[in-house]
């Protein structure tokens, strides 16, 4: 019980299977909304704002020589995964401990807190990837955003999803009431959505804000995803950004396991 390592991958897989079984009841609604929302942004911003941006030649330089739609598309892919996995690691985690108490049900089986945390992470990776894949399919329909770079972008979206899911899971495990979740959404997720590099290069922001924007994993994921879709890839920087994203995942897992173990096995 004292070790962090799961006995095998079987435990996390079983927990992911549990999430899948519940998801099967709601997937239609879910897929539709996680697909529609980025599409609306892409049409509203990419096409609407894009027509203004693209008319200005100096902006095109700032964006790295691509159209605004092509610039925004990978950002939307990654922010979609972020928003989805962040929300799915708030109320559902509290439900597992306090409302439906599913985690307590699992705690009396041979599965452990590590299995629950890794199972959740695995499930978040799947959810992040499928949401990003759905958006990718839509993006592939348009010549301006069509690119083989969309394929690795799905993986980036899954990693960024986990990089938000795991630390937020750690937060949710210790949360006493669900009021904090709305605050987390308003003061963390939405500002990141706006200032995290999805819609414009963060070099446009004051230096202090730039540094703040670089702390969470979102900007790093967006930069990597944009590299893939636009074809301007700096491999060394990509490796560094991905390592940083993975660090968030790892820290989130370790803290979550510790906290969950304390809650489930007092």
């Amino acid at each position, binding site marked *: *019980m004292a070790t962090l390592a799961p*006995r095998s991958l*079987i435990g996390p897989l*079983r927990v992911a*299977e*549990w999430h899948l*079984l*519940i998801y099967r*009841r709601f997937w239609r609604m879910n897929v539709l909304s996680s697909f529609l929302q980025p599409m609306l942004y892409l049409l509203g911003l990419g096409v609407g704002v894009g027509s203004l941006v693209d008319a200005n030649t100096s902006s095109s330089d700032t964006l790295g020589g691509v159209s605004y739609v092509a610039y925004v598309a990978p950002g939307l892919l990654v922010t979609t995964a972020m928003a989805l996995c962040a929300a799915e690691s708030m109320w559902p985690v509290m439900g597992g401990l306090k409302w*439906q*108490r*599913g985690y*307590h*049900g*699992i*705690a*009396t*089986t*041979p*599965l*452990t807190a590590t299995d629950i945390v890794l199972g959740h992470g695995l499930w978040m990776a799947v959810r992040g990837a499928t949401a990003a894949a759905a958006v990718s399919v839509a993006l592939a329909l348009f010549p301006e955003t069509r690119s083989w770079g969309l394929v690795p972008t799905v993986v980036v979206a899954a990693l960024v999803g986990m990089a938000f899911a795991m630390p937020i899971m750690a937060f949710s495990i210790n949360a006493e009431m669900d009021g904090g979740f709305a605050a987390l959404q308003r003061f963390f997720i939405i500002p990141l959505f706006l200032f995290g590099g999805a819609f414009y290069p963060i070099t446009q922001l004051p230096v202090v804000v730039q540094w703040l924007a670089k702390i969470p994993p979102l900007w790093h994921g967006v930069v990597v995803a944009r590299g893939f879709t636009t074809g301007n890839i700096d491999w060394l920087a990509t490796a560094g950004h991905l390592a940083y994203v993975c660090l968030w995942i790892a820290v989130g897992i370790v803290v979550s396991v510790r906290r969950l173990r304390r809650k*489930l*096995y*007092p």
Partner: protein
Amino acid sequence: MTAPLLDAHRLVKRFGDFTAVNGIDVQVQPGEAFGFLGPNGAGKSSTMRMIACVSAPSEGSLHMFGLDAATHGAAIRARIGVVPQLDTLDTELSVQENLWLYGRFFDLSRAESKRRTKELLEFAQLSERADSIVDNLSGGMKRRLSIARSLINEPELLLLDEPTTGLDPQARHVLWDRLYRLKQQGVTLVLTTHYMDEAEQLCDRLVVMDQGRIVAEGSPRSLIEQYATREVLELRFAAGTNDQQTAALAGIGERQEVLPDRVLVYANDGEAALVQAHDRGARPESALVRRASLEDVFLLLTGRSLVD
């Protein structure tokens, strides 16, 4: 005597400064139905959680199936079934999905989990509701599903924490019948309750806990014989006048207890005690002579003051 299935020695559980379980010794033999009785806050649930290997003892030793609970939690959990005080069912899933999925947590194959699900649906009389969403079930059905789910790994020991709290009488009797069948199949039962009739119905042997300690141990019958008289005279007086009766009743029977709603006189001959009370001038609004029950033992041992 065979080796005990559960062997706790000087078991202690502390939460910060609070000592929930204060050095208890318990042994349960295979096939036994064993009960923990006690008022709220006596330490029953904390004890059960240690036995279920979801809570580590602060002190003392706990062995289950000969394995040390401190180091073999997962292996022990694989061999026991737990019916918690609060249901942990997946209310969004159907009845059979709940069972099937739980089997997967115990590493059963899909086919095997399906087979056992079908069996348990029948056992819990829920076959007709197999596809119902759990949210729509009655309290009694949810409880039966919780028990069915705890049996998916064919446990050698079943732990039940207040299994019938909140159920109506019919639902309780159905549940008792199911538990009795399990006992006949050789499943060892360990349960907590604060219903005396439940303890008398189900338990071969029980302990009474109070403030984290065991204050009495034995079969329901032997506890009644040891701690209570053969009969009990229950007297009801006008509201609020119970305390004024003690002088008149002093010395009648072996002992008197003043409860909020009535006065109990413990005597081997209840009728004779009633005659004596009348002779002394007591004028109860109603009087009843009954056999002593486990409730009398419980009230004597754990005190009559209301415990939250």
